[in-house]
């Protein structure tokens, strides 16, 4: 089995056959269809990619392939034949015996899917021991072997840590080890790298791909990221509204998609803005250092200038300090040292010392509109609040301005009496934007505002932001981890790593080689549509590693 790690993988007999699958979910007092008649089949050792936007039903299908429906969902029709037996009609006890031992699951957010109360090793071997597949000792040593294969640091001892004691990327690999523990025939990967940084993602993808090949495990790989699925899957199935759009081999799907919808997904983001250089700066951050609870420094000696009416994109991985930067600029976290000047006047570091007018001029939009909007206030109340608070608008004046703002964010006034819960993700983020605009700000800090949105909605949101900048001359600090977003909107780019600015300058300067070493690592880790991208990248890094070790 070990020496089958070449590119040509032996594809065996049929393993999984899903026929006419229907799943419903319960919300708003009634059952809604989530999956509507999906067929799917998988051979031994084959990897099938399920791709689609949020709400396409891809995760639900992944779970249904294990004969499982989440609480609040039910499988209403169809059959799931696993190795010739229908998972849906067998007894719960028989399904339990299959789960974990022959079909396993790897979830998106390992931090939430690992039990916080138990050590990693105990959770990794639990299935093998409970199903009587291996003794505790044997399972332990096997788990350590798996940790080593997945390239986890300190494989002998990492299992004795608790989930909160290891990083996200390590946790995701530990979860893969947990799924592998019984050497299942099939693993369902549900967006296993979506929550990770790009540089970590590369490592996890490589680990997963290698181990799946080593053990010739069949897999269903669920993701919304095409470039990722291109690296992992033999075959891709595109889903929309719970139905199959099309299905083909990976290379064929990438080069010649048959359906119009697929092509819109495929089209690399067309948005690209030519940069404009300005020397008139609205905000200038000078040698700022900040720390939480007076201890760990999260920003060290950071200096950034924001040109007036332009966009500065701040890129970096989680923990790079980019969100802290936003908190420092807004004054939520006063800097320990350094200075900030706004519109050529010094800006008090602490929120409490800023005048109401200064507060008005700098606004912020957050990543998750769900937590940034009060679920009990209507859209009108949400937008009216800054109008009343900052500008003292009342009555007709207020209503007229609200109508104007709704027009600006391209939404109908009919939405005004809705609650945030009744809006889509993209609409909610627009409401957040309208609330920020209501204060007539000069600078808006956008903290990962598009990362929770689907590709197409993202593009609309970015276009809107750019139009508003042209019309109103607002400056943006745009915090993101997504390089494609940077290409679309930035004039200048700041690359951050571990609380420091690695590089900054005009977009083209930063994005074209030569880069600083970290920028190079970051840019090269962004997956590309080419199915050979990961293989090539790993080979190149290996060569460079050898070269540098030799030199």
């Amino acid at each position: 089995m070990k020496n089958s790690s070449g590119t040509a993988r032996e594809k065996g007999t049929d393993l999984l056959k899903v026929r006419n699958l229907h799943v419903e979910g319960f919300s708003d007092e009634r059952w809604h269809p989530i999956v509507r008649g999906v067929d799917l089949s998988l051979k031994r050792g084959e990897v099938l990619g399920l791709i689609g936007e949020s709400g396409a039903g891809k995760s639900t299908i992944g779970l249904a392939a294990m004969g499982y429906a989440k609480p609040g969902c039910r499988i209403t029709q169809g059959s799931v034949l696993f190795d010739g037996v229908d998972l849906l009609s067998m007894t719960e006890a028989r399904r339990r015996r299959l789960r974990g031992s022959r079909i396993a699951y790897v979830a998106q957010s390992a931090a939430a899917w690992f039990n916080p109360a138990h050590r990693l090793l105990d959770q990794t071997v639990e299935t093998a021991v409970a199903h009587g597949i291996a003794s505790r000792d044997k399972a332990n040593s096997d788990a350590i072997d798996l940790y080593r294969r997945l390239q986890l640091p300190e494989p002998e001892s990492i299992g004795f840590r608790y989930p909160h004691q290891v990083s996200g990327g390590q946790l995701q690999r530990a979860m893969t080890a947990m799924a592998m523990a019984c050497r299942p025939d099939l693993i369902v990967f549900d967006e296993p790298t979506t929550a990770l940084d790009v540089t970590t993602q590369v490592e996890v993808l490589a680990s997963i791909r290698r181990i799946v090949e080593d053990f010739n495990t069949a897999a269903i790989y669920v993701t919304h990221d095409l470039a990722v699925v291109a690296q992992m899957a033999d075959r891709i199935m595109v889903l929309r509204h719970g139905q199959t759009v099309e299905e083909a081999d990976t290379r064929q799907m990438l080069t010649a998609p048959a359906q119009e919808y697929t092509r819109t997904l495929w089209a690399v983001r067309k948005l690209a803005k030519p940069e404009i250089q300005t020397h008139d700066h609205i905000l200038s951050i000078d040698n700022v250092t900040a720390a939480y609870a007076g201890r760990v420094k999260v920003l060290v000696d950071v200096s950034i200038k924001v040109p007036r009416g332009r966009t500065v994109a701040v890129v970096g991985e989680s923990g790079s300090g980019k969100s802290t930067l936003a908190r420092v600029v807004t004054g939520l976290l006063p800097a320990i040292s350094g200075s900030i000047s706004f519109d050529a006047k010094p800006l008090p570091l602490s929120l409490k010392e800023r005048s109401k007018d200064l507060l008005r001029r700098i606004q912020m939009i957050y990543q998750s509109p769900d937590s940034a909007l009060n679920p009990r206030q209507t859209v009108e109340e949400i937008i009216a609040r800054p109008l009343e608070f900052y500008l003292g608008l009342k009555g007709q004046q207020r209503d007229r301005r609200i109508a104007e703002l709704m027009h600006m964010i391209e939404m109908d006034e009919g939405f005004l009496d809705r609650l945030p819960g009744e809006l889509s993700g993209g609409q909610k983020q627009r409401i957040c934007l309208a609330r920020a605009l209501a204060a007539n700000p000069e600078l808006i800090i956008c903290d990962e505002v598009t990362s929770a949105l689907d590709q197409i909605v993202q593009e609309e949101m970015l276009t809107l932001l750019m139009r508003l900048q042209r019309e109103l001359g607002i400056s943006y600090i745009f915090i993101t981890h997504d390089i494609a977003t940077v290409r679309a909107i930035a004039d200048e780019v700041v690359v951050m790593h571990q609380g420091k600015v690695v590089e900054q300058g005009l977009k083209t300067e930063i994005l074209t080689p030569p880069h600083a070493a970290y920028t190079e690592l970051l840019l090269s880790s962004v997956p590309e549509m080419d199915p050979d991208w990961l293989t090539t990248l790993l080979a190149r890094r290996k060569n460079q590693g050898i070269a540098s070790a030799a030199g």
Partner: protein
Amino acid sequence: MLAKRAARAADGAPLGIRMRVNPVAKTVLQRLGLGLVTLFIVSIIIFSAIAMLPGDFAKATLGQSATPETVAALQHEIGLDRPPIQRYFSWIGKMAQGDFGSSFASRTGYRRTVAEIIAPRLYNTMFLAVMTALVAVPLALGLGILAALYRNSWFDRLVNTVTLTTISFPEFFVAYILAFLIISRDTFAGTQFAQSLPVWLAVSINWTLNVVPKFPTLANISDQTPFWEHVWRAALPSITLTLVIVAHMMRMTRAAIINMLSSPYIDMARLKGMRPMVIVLRHALPNAWAPIVTVVAFNLAYLIVGVVVVEVVFVYPGVGQLMVDAVKSRDVPVVQACALVFAATYILLNLIADIISIATNPRLLHPR
């Protein structure tokens, strides 16, 4: 102790580098300190509340016919003529040294210390509390876990209904019903009600009643009562208290576990093919201890400080009755000592609950 730690930290480490104290130990010390502060504040409240009571010991014992001179003499003898602030500090100062003082009922040559008055009563109260807790806590946890496991089944509904019913009645009512049932053992057959029933029904009710052991309806205990005899006599009060406190703890256990069951890691356990019992016991319960322990501590505290009504019904000589009697006779040192013991119990049990909550949270126990 704190001073010692501070001294060690000061001479060893240069400024800015703090000693790494185990965070759990740190929290425990903090809570302990807070508990002492609370106890101090409570002592002030107790003292002022009692000082505000109308009348005093001298007037209460000497009666209405006493002359002002005799009252003043007695007041002077037991120190009631001193200003309240002075009395408070002398009381709390002695208390801190473990001296509970003397009862006002002492006379020259016949000193009765508060400690010797309270000790046997406190032993009885503790005896009843521990005995009840040993039954009630495992019962409540077990029922709660089973109810969570088989939630929305007839078992779950039955347990919920029964425990809700028992908690809805005032405790003295539950106590009297139980006592009535015991008495009915012997009297049922002779009642008019029994004779109006069909014979088979009357006989089977009588048989059922006779299955119940004949617990004593009066729990009179002395310090000579042997251990098992004590258990036997305290059975009925203990059952009453069990019925009163099980509902709370059971419902919290059930709710805390069910709350955990919607976590992603429970989904994961299901997808790993774990049996429902394993999911509840190994995956949900360890994360649910904090709320459960808090409610258990609250109920255990009730067993010590809140059982006076049950004590009265079964004439059980516990601290509760002692305190009520002492309030009646204005025997202030005894009242104050009882109140302080109650407060300390509350604080201590809550402290223990906090510590257990921390100890069951690996994030706090094993920092990164």
